[in-house]
Protein backbone atom coordinates (compact mmCIF):
# COMPACT_ATOMS: atom_id res chain seq x y z
CA UNK A 1 0.00 0.00 0.00
CA UNK A 2 1.07 3.55 -0.70
CA UNK A 3 0.96 6.63 1.49
CA UNK A 4 0.46 10.30 0.75
CA UNK A 5 2.35 13.38 1.94
CA UNK A 6 0.65 16.74 2.44
CA UNK A 7 2.75 19.85 2.92
CA UNK A 8 1.69 23.50 3.18
CA UNK A 9 3.22 26.88 3.80
CA UNK A 10 1.70 30.29 4.09
CA UNK A 11 3.64 33.14 2.48
CA UNK A 12 5.01 34.32 5.86
CA UNK A 13 6.28 30.92 6.83
CA UNK A 14 8.41 30.63 3.70
CA UNK A 15 10.43 33.50 5.04
CA UNK A 16 10.70 31.89 8.45
CA UNK A 17 12.31 28.70 7.18
CA UNK A 18 9.46 26.19 7.23
CA UNK A 19 9.68 25.84 3.48
CA UNK A 20 7.78 23.31 1.44
CA UNK A 21 10.98 21.52 0.44
CA UNK A 22 12.10 21.17 4.05
CA UNK A 23 8.71 19.76 5.09
CA UNK A 24 8.58 17.43 2.09
CA UNK A 25 12.08 16.10 2.75
CA UNK A 26 11.35 15.41 6.42
CA UNK A 27 8.03 13.72 5.55
CA UNK A 28 9.68 11.50 2.95
CA UNK A 29 12.56 10.64 5.32
CA UNK A 30 10.00 9.80 8.01
CA UNK A 31 8.05 7.58 5.58
CA UNK A 32 11.22 5.86 4.48
CA UNK A 33 12.29 5.16 8.07
CA UNK A 34 8.92 3.48 8.70
CA UNK A 35 8.92 1.57 5.42
CA UNK A 36 5.97 3.47 3.92
CA UNK A 37 6.02 3.97 0.18
CA UNK A 38 5.24 7.46 -1.12
CA UNK A 39 5.20 7.69 -4.93
CA UNK A 40 6.11 11.07 -6.39
CA UNK A 41 2.52 11.76 -7.53
CA UNK A 42 1.31 11.21 -3.94
CA UNK A 43 2.96 14.39 -2.71
CA UNK A 44 0.50 17.26 -2.40
CA UNK A 45 1.89 20.78 -1.94
CA UNK A 46 -0.13 23.89 -1.04
CA UNK A 47 1.97 26.99 -1.35
CA UNK A 48 0.95 30.39 0.06
CA UNK A 49 -2.30 28.93 1.43
CA UNK A 50 -3.68 29.64 4.86
CA UNK A 51 -4.80 26.74 7.04
CA UNK A 52 -7.84 28.81 7.95
CA UNK A 53 -9.37 27.90 4.60
CA UNK A 54 -10.43 24.37 3.84
CA UNK A 55 -10.72 24.98 0.11
CA UNK A 56 -6.99 24.64 -0.48
CA UNK A 57 -6.59 23.06 -3.93
CA UNK A 58 -3.97 20.46 -3.05
CA UNK A 59 -5.64 19.50 0.23
CA UNK A 60 -8.85 18.85 -1.67
CA UNK A 61 -6.91 16.95 -4.35
CA UNK A 62 -5.28 14.78 -1.66
CA UNK A 63 -8.65 14.00 -0.02
CA UNK A 64 -10.12 13.19 -3.42
CA UNK A 65 -7.15 10.94 -4.17
CA UNK A 66 -7.70 9.07 -0.88
CA UNK A 67 -11.40 8.69 -1.67
CA UNK A 68 -10.79 7.35 -5.17
CA UNK A 69 -8.06 4.99 -3.97
CA UNK A 70 -9.87 3.81 -0.88
CA UNK A 71 -8.14 0.75 0.53
CA UNK A 72 -4.89 1.53 -1.31
CA UNK A 73 -3.71 4.47 0.79
CA UNK A 74 -2.32 3.65 4.20
CA UNK A 75 -0.97 6.84 5.75
CA UNK A 76 -1.31 10.56 5.29
CA UNK A 77 1.96 12.10 6.46
CA UNK A 78 2.18 15.74 7.52
CA UNK A 79 5.09 17.61 9.01
CA UNK A 80 2.94 19.13 11.73
CA UNK A 81 -0.78 18.95 12.54
CA UNK A 82 -1.28 22.68 12.04
CA UNK A 83 -0.50 22.08 8.34
CA UNK A 84 -3.96 20.62 8.15
CA UNK A 85 -6.23 22.97 9.95
CA UNK A 86 -6.12 25.84 12.40
CA UNK A 87 -9.35 25.06 14.08
CA UNK A 88 -10.59 21.92 15.75
CA UNK A 89 -13.76 21.63 13.67
CA UNK A 90 -11.91 21.61 10.35
CA UNK A 91 -9.34 19.21 11.80
CA UNK A 92 -12.02 16.77 12.92
CA UNK A 93 -13.77 17.01 9.55
CA UNK A 94 -10.61 16.35 7.49
CA UNK A 95 -9.59 13.60 9.90
CA UNK A 96 -13.02 11.96 9.53
CA UNK A 97 -12.73 11.96 5.72
CA UNK A 98 -9.32 10.29 5.97
CA UNK A 99 -10.55 7.73 8.48
CA UNK A 100 -13.60 6.97 6.34
CA UNK A 101 -11.22 6.11 3.50
CA UNK A 102 -9.04 3.97 5.74
CA UNK A 103 -6.18 6.46 5.95
CA UNK A 104 -4.30 7.12 9.22
CA UNK A 105 -2.94 10.56 9.95
CA UNK A 106 0.75 10.74 10.90
CA UNK A 107 2.71 13.78 12.05
CA UNK A 108 6.49 13.86 11.65
CA UNK A 109 7.03 16.18 14.60
CA UNK A 110 4.21 15.12 16.93
CA UNK A 111 3.50 11.83 18.68
CA UNK A 112 0.04 10.94 17.38
CA UNK A 113 -1.30 7.55 16.43
CA UNK A 114 -4.54 5.55 16.79
CA UNK A 115 -3.85 4.59 20.42
CA UNK A 116 -5.95 6.38 23.09
CA UNK A 117 -2.89 8.44 24.11
CA UNK A 118 -2.13 9.28 20.48
CA UNK A 119 -5.74 10.38 19.90
CA UNK A 120 -5.65 12.56 23.02
CA UNK A 121 -2.41 14.13 21.82
CA UNK A 122 -3.94 14.76 18.42
CA UNK A 123 -6.97 16.47 19.93
CA UNK A 124 -4.81 18.59 22.24
CA UNK A 125 -2.47 19.56 19.39
CA UNK A 126 -5.28 20.51 17.02
CA UNK A 127 -6.76 22.55 19.88
CA UNK A 128 -3.43 24.34 20.28
CA UNK A 129 -3.32 25.02 16.54
CA UNK A 130 -6.73 26.66 16.83
CA UNK A 131 -5.66 28.63 19.91
CA UNK A 132 -2.51 29.79 18.12
CA UNK A 133 -4.56 30.87 15.14
CA UNK A 134 -7.03 32.76 17.27
CA UNK A 135 -4.23 34.57 19.08
CA UNK A 136 -2.74 35.56 15.72
CA UNK A 137 -6.11 36.71 14.41
CA UNK A 138 -6.72 38.69 17.59
CA UNK A 139 -3.32 40.39 17.33
CA UNK A 140 -3.83 41.20 13.66
CA UNK A 141 -7.32 42.54 14.29
CA UNK A 142 -6.17 44.67 17.21
CA UNK A 143 -3.32 46.02 15.10
CA UNK A 144 -5.76 46.89 12.33
CA UNK A 145 -8.11 48.59 14.77
CA UNK A 146 -5.26 50.71 16.10
CA UNK A 147 -4.23 51.72 12.57
CA UNK A 148 -7.81 52.61 11.70
CA UNK A 149 -8.24 54.69 14.86
CA UNK A 150 -5.07 56.57 13.91
CA UNK A 151 -6.63 57.35 10.55
CA UNK A 152 -4.57 54.82 8.60
CA UNK A 153 -5.91 52.26 6.12
CA UNK A 154 -4.47 48.74 6.51
CA UNK A 155 -6.75 47.16 3.88
CA UNK A 156 -6.51 47.12 0.10
CA UNK A 157 -6.78 50.56 -1.46
CA UNK A 158 -10.29 51.27 -2.80
CA UNK A 159 -10.63 52.33 -6.42
CA UNK A 160 -9.30 55.84 -6.90
CA UNK A 161 -6.52 55.35 -4.37
CA UNK A 162 -3.17 53.54 -4.12
CA UNK A 163 -1.49 52.20 -1.02
CA UNK A 164 0.91 54.59 0.67
CA UNK A 165 2.66 55.27 3.96
CA UNK A 166 2.87 58.38 6.08
CA UNK A 167 6.22 59.76 7.20
CA UNK A 168 5.64 57.94 10.48
CA UNK A 169 5.25 54.67 8.63
CA UNK A 170 1.48 54.33 9.06
CA UNK A 171 -0.17 52.45 6.21
CA UNK A 172 -2.58 54.74 4.41
CA UNK A 173 -3.77 55.55 0.91
CA UNK A 174 -3.04 58.31 -1.59
CA UNK A 175 -5.01 59.48 -4.64
CA UNK A 176 -4.35 57.39 -7.74
CA UNK A 177 -2.70 59.62 -10.36
CA UNK A 178 -5.40 58.92 -12.97
CA UNK A 179 -8.36 57.28 -11.25
CA UNK A 180 -8.76 59.80 -8.42
CA UNK A 181 -9.96 62.59 -10.73
CA UNK A 182 -12.42 60.18 -12.39
CA UNK A 183 -13.83 59.14 -9.01
CA UNK A 184 -14.23 62.78 -7.97
CA UNK A 185 -16.04 63.59 -11.20
CA UNK A 186 -18.24 60.52 -10.86
CA UNK A 187 -19.25 61.17 -7.24
CA UNK A 188 -19.89 64.85 -7.84
CA UNK A 189 -21.94 64.10 -10.95
CA UNK A 190 -24.02 61.61 -8.99
CA UNK A 191 -24.70 64.29 -6.39
CA UNK A 192 -26.58 66.32 -9.01
CA UNK A 193 -29.41 63.87 -8.40
CA UNK A 194 -29.87 63.10 -12.08
CA UNK A 195 -28.94 59.43 -11.86
CA UNK A 196 -30.33 56.30 -10.34
CA UNK A 197 -27.74 53.81 -9.03
CA UNK A 198 -28.12 51.69 -12.17
CA UNK A 199 -27.62 54.74 -14.37
CA UNK A 200 -24.64 55.65 -12.18
CA UNK A 201 -23.08 52.29 -13.06
CA UNK A 202 -23.29 53.27 -16.75
CA UNK A 203 -21.89 56.68 -15.96
CA UNK A 204 -18.96 55.12 -14.07
CA UNK A 205 -18.19 52.92 -17.06
CA UNK A 206 -18.28 55.90 -19.42
CA UNK A 207 -15.91 57.79 -17.15
CA UNK A 208 -13.46 54.87 -17.17
CA UNK A 209 -14.27 53.50 -13.72
CA UNK A 210 -14.31 49.82 -14.60
CA UNK A 211 -13.71 46.41 -13.10
CA UNK A 212 -10.41 44.52 -13.30
CA UNK A 213 -11.36 43.06 -16.68
CA UNK A 214 -12.24 46.47 -18.11
CA UNK A 215 -15.97 45.75 -17.93
CA UNK A 216 -18.84 47.53 -16.24
CA UNK A 217 -18.92 47.45 -12.46
CA UNK A 218 -22.14 46.08 -11.01
CA UNK A 219 -24.59 48.57 -9.63
CA UNK A 220 -24.11 47.00 -6.18
CA UNK A 221 -20.37 47.74 -6.34
CA UNK A 222 -21.10 51.26 -7.51
CA UNK A 223 -23.57 51.73 -4.66
CA UNK A 224 -20.90 50.62 -2.19
CA UNK A 225 -18.46 53.09 -3.75
CA UNK A 226 -20.97 55.91 -3.32
CA UNK A 227 -21.61 54.83 0.28
CA UNK A 228 -17.91 54.63 1.17
CA UNK A 229 -16.98 57.53 3.47
CA UNK A 230 -13.31 57.02 2.63
CA UNK A 231 -13.83 59.29 -0.39
CA UNK A 232 -14.84 62.10 1.97
CA UNK A 233 -11.67 61.61 4.02
CA UNK A 234 -13.11 59.30 6.68
CA UNK A 235 -12.14 55.86 7.87
CA UNK A 236 -14.77 53.24 8.49
CA UNK A 237 -14.54 49.48 8.10
CA UNK A 238 -15.90 46.36 9.72
CA UNK A 239 -13.14 46.69 12.31
CA UNK A 240 -14.27 50.14 13.50
CA UNK A 241 -17.54 48.86 15.01
CA UNK A 242 -19.57 51.45 13.18
CA UNK A 243 -17.30 54.29 14.30
CA UNK A 244 -15.94 56.74 11.77
CA UNK A 245 -12.50 58.31 12.15
CA UNK A 246 -10.84 61.20 10.36
CA UNK A 247 -8.44 59.64 7.86
CA UNK A 248 -4.85 60.58 7.23
CA UNK A 249 -5.50 60.41 3.51
CA UNK A 250 -6.65 63.06 1.08
CA UNK A 251 -10.41 63.21 0.45
CA UNK A 252 -11.65 63.08 -3.13
CA UNK A 253 -14.98 64.79 -2.43
CA UNK A 254 -16.32 67.20 0.16
CA UNK A 255 -18.33 66.02 3.12
CA UNK A 256 -21.34 67.91 1.78
CA UNK A 257 -21.18 65.99 -1.52
CA UNK A 258 -20.87 62.71 0.35
CA UNK A 259 -23.88 63.53 2.54
CA UNK A 260 -25.89 64.59 -0.50
CA UNK A 261 -25.14 61.26 -2.16
CA UNK A 262 -26.28 59.37 0.92
CA UNK A 263 -29.57 61.29 0.89
CA UNK A 264 -30.04 60.45 -2.78
CA UNK A 265 -29.40 56.76 -2.06
CA UNK A 266 -31.79 56.84 0.89
CA UNK A 267 -34.47 58.33 -1.36
CA UNK A 268 -34.65 61.48 0.74
CA UNK A 269 -33.53 63.57 -2.17
CA UNK A 270 -35.27 63.56 -5.52
CA UNK A 271 -33.59 61.96 -8.49
CA UNK A 272 -34.25 63.81 -11.71
CA UNK A 273 -33.98 61.35 -14.54
CA UNK A 274 -34.45 61.66 -18.27
CA UNK A 275 -36.75 59.41 -20.25
CA UNK A 276 -38.36 59.04 -23.66
CA UNK A 277 -41.36 60.91 -22.29
CA UNK A 278 -39.19 64.00 -22.28
CA UNK A 279 -40.34 65.01 -25.76
CA UNK A 280 -43.99 65.25 -24.77
CA UNK A 281 -44.42 67.06 -21.43
CA UNK A 282 -47.93 68.23 -22.31
CA UNK A 283 -49.52 64.87 -22.99
CA UNK A 284 -51.21 62.35 -20.65
CA UNK A 285 -52.73 64.41 -17.86
CA UNK A 286 -52.45 67.97 -19.11
CA UNK A 287 -53.67 68.94 -22.58
CA UNK A 288 -57.21 67.98 -23.52
CA UNK A 289 -58.67 68.10 -26.99
CA UNK A 290 -61.08 71.00 -27.10
CA UNK A 291 -63.56 69.00 -29.15
CA UNK A 292 -63.85 65.77 -27.19
CA UNK A 293 -62.30 66.63 -23.77
CA UNK A 294 -59.99 63.61 -23.99
CA UNK A 295 -56.33 63.96 -23.19
CA UNK A 296 -54.16 64.43 -26.26
CA UNK A 297 -51.71 61.71 -27.24
CA UNK A 298 -48.31 61.88 -28.88
CA UNK A 299 -46.55 60.06 -31.67
CA UNK A 300 -43.50 60.44 -33.87
CA UNK A 301 -44.29 59.36 -37.43
CA UNK A 302 -41.28 58.90 -39.69
CA UNK A 303 -40.93 61.02 -42.82
CA UNK A 304 -39.74 59.72 -46.20
CA UNK A 305 -36.14 60.37 -45.18
CA UNK A 306 -36.61 58.28 -42.03
CA UNK A 307 -36.52 61.30 -39.73
CA UNK A 308 -39.05 61.31 -36.89
CA UNK A 309 -41.55 64.14 -36.58
CA UNK A 310 -42.94 64.24 -33.02
CA UNK A 311 -46.57 65.38 -32.88
CA UNK A 312 -49.41 65.81 -30.45
CA UNK A 313 -52.80 64.64 -31.63
CA UNK A 314 -56.28 63.56 -30.60
CA UNK A 315 -56.87 59.86 -30.97
CA UNK A 316 -60.65 60.27 -30.78
CA UNK A 317 -61.40 63.01 -33.27
CA UNK A 318 -61.09 62.76 -37.03
CA UNK A 319 -60.49 65.65 -39.42
CA UNK A 320 -62.88 64.05 -41.92
CA UNK A 321 -65.71 64.30 -39.35
CA UNK A 322 -65.10 67.60 -37.54
CA UNK A 323 -63.45 69.33 -40.47
CA UNK A 324 -60.57 70.61 -38.38
CA UNK A 325 -56.95 69.67 -37.69
CA UNK A 326 -56.58 67.03 -35.00
CA UNK A 327 -52.78 66.98 -34.67
CA UNK A 328 -49.86 69.36 -34.68
CA UNK A 329 -46.08 69.15 -34.41
CA UNK A 330 -44.94 69.10 -30.79
CA UNK A 331 -42.45 71.90 -31.48
CA UNK A 332 -45.29 74.23 -32.49
CA UNK A 333 -47.45 73.28 -29.51
CA UNK A 334 -44.51 73.84 -27.16
CA UNK A 335 -43.84 77.22 -28.73
CA UNK A 336 -47.46 78.25 -28.16
CA UNK A 337 -47.35 76.99 -24.59
CA UNK A 338 -44.17 78.93 -23.91
CA UNK A 339 -45.79 82.07 -25.26
CA UNK A 340 -48.49 81.67 -22.65
CA UNK A 341 -45.93 81.05 -19.95
CA UNK A 342 -43.93 84.11 -20.96
CA UNK A 343 -46.88 86.32 -20.06
CA UNK A 344 -47.78 84.89 -16.71
CA UNK A 345 -46.31 85.01 -13.24
CA UNK A 346 -47.09 83.28 -9.99
CA UNK A 347 -49.22 85.21 -7.58
CA UNK A 348 -47.43 86.61 -4.54
CA UNK A 349 -48.91 84.01 -2.20
CA UNK A 350 -47.63 81.16 -4.33
CA UNK A 351 -44.20 82.74 -4.55
CA UNK A 352 -44.18 82.98 -0.75
CA UNK A 353 -44.96 79.26 -0.47
CA UNK A 354 -42.25 78.46 -2.98
CA UNK A 355 -39.70 80.66 -1.21
CA UNK A 356 -40.46 79.02 2.13
CA UNK A 357 -40.02 75.56 0.63
CA UNK A 358 -36.74 76.50 -1.06
CA UNK A 359 -35.44 77.84 2.22
CA UNK A 360 -36.51 74.73 4.08
CA UNK A 361 -34.93 72.43 1.49
CA UNK A 362 -31.74 74.40 1.52
CA UNK A 363 -31.56 74.12 5.29
CA UNK A 364 -32.15 70.34 5.09
CA UNK A 365 -29.46 69.96 2.50
CA UNK A 366 -26.88 71.94 4.39
CA UNK A 367 -27.87 70.85 7.83
CA UNK A 368 -24.89 68.53 7.94
CA UNK A 369 -22.60 71.21 6.62
CA UNK A 370 -23.82 73.60 9.28
CA UNK A 371 -23.31 70.99 11.99
CA UNK A 372 -19.79 70.44 10.65
CA UNK A 373 -19.19 74.21 10.81
CA UNK A 374 -20.26 74.17 14.47
CA UNK A 375 -17.87 71.30 15.23
CA UNK A 376 -15.03 73.07 13.44
CA UNK A 377 -15.56 76.18 15.55
CA UNK A 378 -15.49 74.07 18.70
CA UNK A 379 -12.25 72.39 17.59
CA UNK A 380 -10.67 75.75 16.82
CA UNK A 381 -11.58 77.04 20.28
CA UNK A 382 -10.10 73.91 21.86
CA UNK A 383 -6.85 74.31 19.91
CA UNK A 384 -6.52 77.98 20.89
CA UNK A 385 -6.90 77.00 24.57
CA UNK A 386 -4.34 74.23 24.10
CA UNK A 387 -1.92 76.68 22.50
CA UNK A 388 -2.33 79.12 25.37
CA UNK A 389 -1.67 76.32 27.88
CA UNK A 390 1.56 75.37 26.10
CA UNK A 391 2.74 78.94 26.27
CA UNK A 392 1.85 79.14 29.98
CA UNK A 393 3.81 75.97 30.67
CA UNK A 394 6.80 77.46 28.89
CA UNK A 395 6.58 80.62 30.97
CA UNK A 396 6.44 78.47 34.13
CA UNK A 397 9.56 76.60 32.93
CA UNK A 398 7.60 73.36 32.62
CA UNK A 399 8.63 73.13 28.98
CA UNK A 400 11.90 73.85 27.24
CA UNK A 401 11.94 76.26 24.33
CA UNK A 402 12.28 73.47 21.77
CA UNK A 403 9.49 71.43 23.39
CA UNK A 404 7.25 74.47 23.34
CA UNK A 405 8.12 75.24 19.71
CA UNK A 406 7.39 71.68 18.66
CA UNK A 407 4.05 71.61 20.49
CA UNK A 408 3.00 74.99 19.11
CA UNK A 409 4.00 73.94 15.59
CA UNK A 410 1.77 70.85 15.81
CA UNK A 411 -1.16 72.87 17.15
CA UNK A 412 -0.70 75.56 14.49
CA UNK A 413 -0.80 72.95 11.74
CA UNK A 414 -4.09 71.68 13.11
CA UNK A 415 -5.41 75.25 13.44
CA UNK A 416 -4.48 75.93 9.81
CA UNK A 417 -6.34 72.79 8.69
CA UNK A 418 -9.46 73.65 10.65
CA UNK A 419 -9.34 77.28 9.52
CA UNK A 420 -9.36 76.10 5.91
CA UNK A 421 -12.35 73.87 6.65
CA UNK A 422 -14.05 76.76 8.44
CA UNK A 423 -13.77 79.00 5.38
CA UNK A 424 -15.42 76.29 3.27
CA UNK A 425 -18.18 75.74 5.82
CA UNK A 426 -18.83 79.47 6.17
CA UNK A 427 -19.20 79.75 2.41
CA UNK A 428 -22.18 77.42 2.58
CA UNK A 429 -23.84 79.59 5.16
CA UNK A 430 -23.13 82.75 3.14
CA UNK A 431 -24.75 81.23 0.08
CA UNK A 432 -28.08 80.78 1.86
CA UNK A 433 -29.68 84.12 0.94
CA UNK A 434 -28.18 84.07 -2.51
CA UNK A 435 -29.44 80.60 -3.31
CA UNK A 436 -32.97 81.34 -2.15
CA UNK A 437 -33.08 84.59 -4.12
CA UNK A 438 -31.69 82.96 -7.23
CA UNK A 439 -34.12 80.08 -6.97
CA UNK A 440 -37.03 82.52 -6.86
CA UNK A 441 -35.53 84.41 -9.80
CA UNK A 442 -35.57 81.23 -11.85
CA UNK A 443 -39.23 80.80 -11.08
CA UNK A 444 -39.96 84.34 -12.17
CA UNK A 445 -39.46 83.28 -15.76
CA UNK A 446 -41.60 80.13 -16.03
CA UNK A 447 -41.23 80.04 -19.82
CA UNK A 448 -37.46 79.76 -19.79
CA UNK A 449 -37.50 77.60 -16.68
CA UNK A 450 -40.05 75.18 -18.18
CA UNK A 451 -38.08 75.00 -21.43
CA UNK A 452 -34.87 73.92 -19.69
CA UNK A 453 -36.27 71.67 -16.99
CA UNK A 454 -36.52 67.87 -17.16
CA UNK A 455 -39.91 66.25 -17.63
CA UNK A 456 -40.77 65.80 -13.94
CA UNK A 457 -40.17 69.47 -13.28
CA UNK A 458 -41.98 70.61 -16.41
CA UNK A 459 -45.03 68.68 -15.27
CA UNK A 460 -44.79 70.12 -11.76
CA UNK A 461 -44.59 73.65 -13.20
CA UNK A 462 -47.60 72.92 -15.40
CA UNK A 463 -49.60 71.68 -12.42
CA UNK A 464 -48.74 74.63 -10.19
CA UNK A 465 -49.86 77.05 -12.89
CA UNK A 466 -52.76 75.07 -14.39
CA UNK A 467 -53.85 72.46 -11.85
CA UNK A 468 -56.75 71.38 -14.05
CA UNK A 469 -54.81 71.20 -17.31
CA UNK A 470 -55.53 73.15 -20.47
CA UNK A 471 -57.88 72.78 -23.37
CA UNK A 472 -56.23 72.76 -26.74
CA UNK A 473 -57.50 73.37 -30.23
CA UNK A 474 -55.18 72.00 -32.89
CA UNK A 475 -56.56 74.61 -35.28
CA UNK A 476 -56.46 77.72 -33.07
CA UNK A 477 -54.08 76.87 -30.26
CA UNK A 478 -54.87 77.21 -26.57
CA UNK A 479 -58.59 77.88 -26.67
CA UNK A 480 -60.24 80.90 -28.23
CA UNK A 481 -61.33 84.24 -26.88
CA UNK A 482 -64.92 83.10 -26.92
CA UNK A 483 -64.19 79.79 -25.34
CA UNK A 484 -61.81 80.58 -22.55
CA UNK A 485 -62.06 83.43 -20.12
CA UNK A 486 -58.51 83.13 -18.78
CA UNK A 487 -57.12 83.03 -22.24
CA UNK A 488 -59.09 86.14 -23.05
CA UNK A 489 -57.46 87.86 -20.14
CA UNK A 490 -54.04 86.97 -21.39
CA UNK A 491 -54.76 88.14 -24.89
CA UNK A 492 -56.26 91.36 -23.63
CA UNK A 493 -53.33 92.26 -21.44
CA UNK A 494 -50.84 91.11 -24.01
CA UNK A 495 -52.32 93.45 -26.57
CA UNK A 496 -52.29 96.36 -24.11
CA UNK A 497 -48.74 95.81 -22.98
CA UNK A 498 -46.79 92.88 -24.23
CA UNK A 499 -44.22 93.32 -21.47
CA UNK A 500 -46.74 93.36 -18.70
CA UNK A 501 -47.13 89.86 -17.37
CA UNK A 502 -50.29 88.51 -15.88
CA UNK A 503 -50.28 87.27 -12.34
CA UNK A 504 -51.97 83.93 -12.16
CA UNK A 505 -53.00 81.75 -9.30
CA UNK A 506 -53.35 78.28 -10.61
CA UNK A 507 -55.73 79.40 -13.34
CA UNK A 508 -58.69 77.11 -13.89
CA UNK A 509 -58.97 76.61 -17.64
CA UNK A 510 -62.48 75.26 -17.95
CA UNK A 511 -63.49 73.48 -21.06
CA UNK A 512 -66.13 75.39 -23.01
CA UNK A 513 -68.01 72.18 -23.68
CA UNK A 514 -67.07 69.98 -20.73
CA UNK A 515 -69.89 67.58 -21.36
CA UNK A 516 -68.56 66.43 -24.69
Amino acid sequence: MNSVVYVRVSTDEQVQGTSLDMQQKQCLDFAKSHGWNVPKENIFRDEGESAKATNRPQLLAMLEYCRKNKGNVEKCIVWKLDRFARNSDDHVMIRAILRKNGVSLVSVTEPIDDSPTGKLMETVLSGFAQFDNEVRTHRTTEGMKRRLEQGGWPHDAPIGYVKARTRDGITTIAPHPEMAAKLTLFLETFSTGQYTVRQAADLAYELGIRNAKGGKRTWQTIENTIKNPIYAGYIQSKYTNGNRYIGLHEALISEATFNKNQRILAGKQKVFTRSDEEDYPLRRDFLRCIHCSKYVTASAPKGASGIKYPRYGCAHCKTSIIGKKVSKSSAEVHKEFREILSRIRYKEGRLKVFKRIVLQRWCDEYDDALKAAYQINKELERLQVERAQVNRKFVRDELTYSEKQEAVKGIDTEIADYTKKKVEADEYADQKEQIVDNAVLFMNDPSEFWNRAPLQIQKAVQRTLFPHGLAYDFENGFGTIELNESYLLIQKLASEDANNPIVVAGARFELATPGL
Partner: protein
Amino acid sequence: MLLRANQVITTEEARELLGDESDHMTDEEVQKLIEDFDLIAQYTIKLVQKFKQKENKTA
Protein backbone atom coordinates in the same frame (compact mmCIF):
# COMPACT_ATOMS: atom_id res chain seq x y z
CA MET B 1 -54.51 68.90 8.41
CA LEU B 2 -52.53 66.84 5.95
CA LEU B 3 -49.01 66.12 7.06
CA ARG B 4 -46.83 63.71 5.13
CA ALA B 5 -43.42 62.18 5.66
CA ASN B 6 -40.58 64.56 4.92
CA GLN B 7 -43.16 67.30 4.55
CA VAL B 8 -41.55 70.69 4.11
CA ILE B 9 -44.48 72.79 5.27
CA THR B 10 -47.97 71.98 6.48
CA THR B 11 -51.07 72.73 4.46
CA GLU B 12 -52.09 75.23 7.13
CA GLU B 13 -48.83 77.11 6.80
CA ALA B 14 -49.24 77.06 3.03
CA ARG B 15 -52.80 78.41 3.32
CA GLU B 16 -51.54 81.24 5.47
CA LEU B 17 -48.93 82.19 2.88
CA LEU B 18 -51.34 81.80 -0.03
CA GLY B 19 -53.84 84.19 1.51
CA ASP B 20 -57.32 84.59 0.01
CA GLU B 21 -56.48 82.38 -2.91
CA SER B 22 -56.49 79.34 -0.69
CA ASP B 23 -60.16 79.87 0.22
CA HIS B 24 -61.12 78.23 -3.04
CA MET B 25 -58.65 75.38 -2.70
CA THR B 26 -59.24 71.99 -1.10
CA ASP B 27 -56.66 70.50 1.26
CA GLU B 28 -55.70 68.05 -1.48
CA GLU B 29 -55.07 70.88 -3.91
CA VAL B 30 -52.91 72.72 -1.40
CA GLN B 31 -51.05 69.52 -0.64
CA LYS B 32 -50.43 68.89 -4.33
CA LEU B 33 -49.15 72.44 -4.72
CA ILE B 34 -46.71 71.90 -1.84
CA GLU B 35 -45.45 68.66 -3.36
CA ASP B 36 -44.98 70.21 -6.79
CA PHE B 37 -43.25 73.25 -5.38
CA ASP B 38 -41.06 70.94 -3.31
CA LEU B 39 -39.98 69.10 -6.43
CA ILE B 40 -39.31 72.36 -8.25
CA ALA B 41 -37.46 73.75 -5.22
CA GLN B 42 -35.08 70.80 -5.02
CA TYR B 43 -34.39 71.03 -8.71
CA THR B 44 -33.94 74.78 -8.60
CA ILE B 45 -31.46 74.57 -5.75
CA LYS B 46 -29.39 72.19 -7.85
CA LEU B 47 -29.65 74.48 -10.84
CA VAL B 48 -28.51 77.47 -8.82
CA GLN B 49 -25.67 75.49 -7.30
CA LYS B 50 -24.48 74.44 -10.74
CA PHE B 51 -24.70 78.00 -11.88
CA LYS B 52 -22.71 79.16 -8.84
CA GLN B 53 -20.08 76.49 -9.41
CA LYS B 54 -19.64 77.59 -13.01
CA GLU B 55 -19.42 81.17 -11.85
CA ASN B 56 -16.75 80.29 -9.29
CA LYS B 57 -14.73 78.37 -11.86
CA THR B 58 -14.70 81.21 -14.34
CA ALA B 59 -14.02 83.82 -11.64
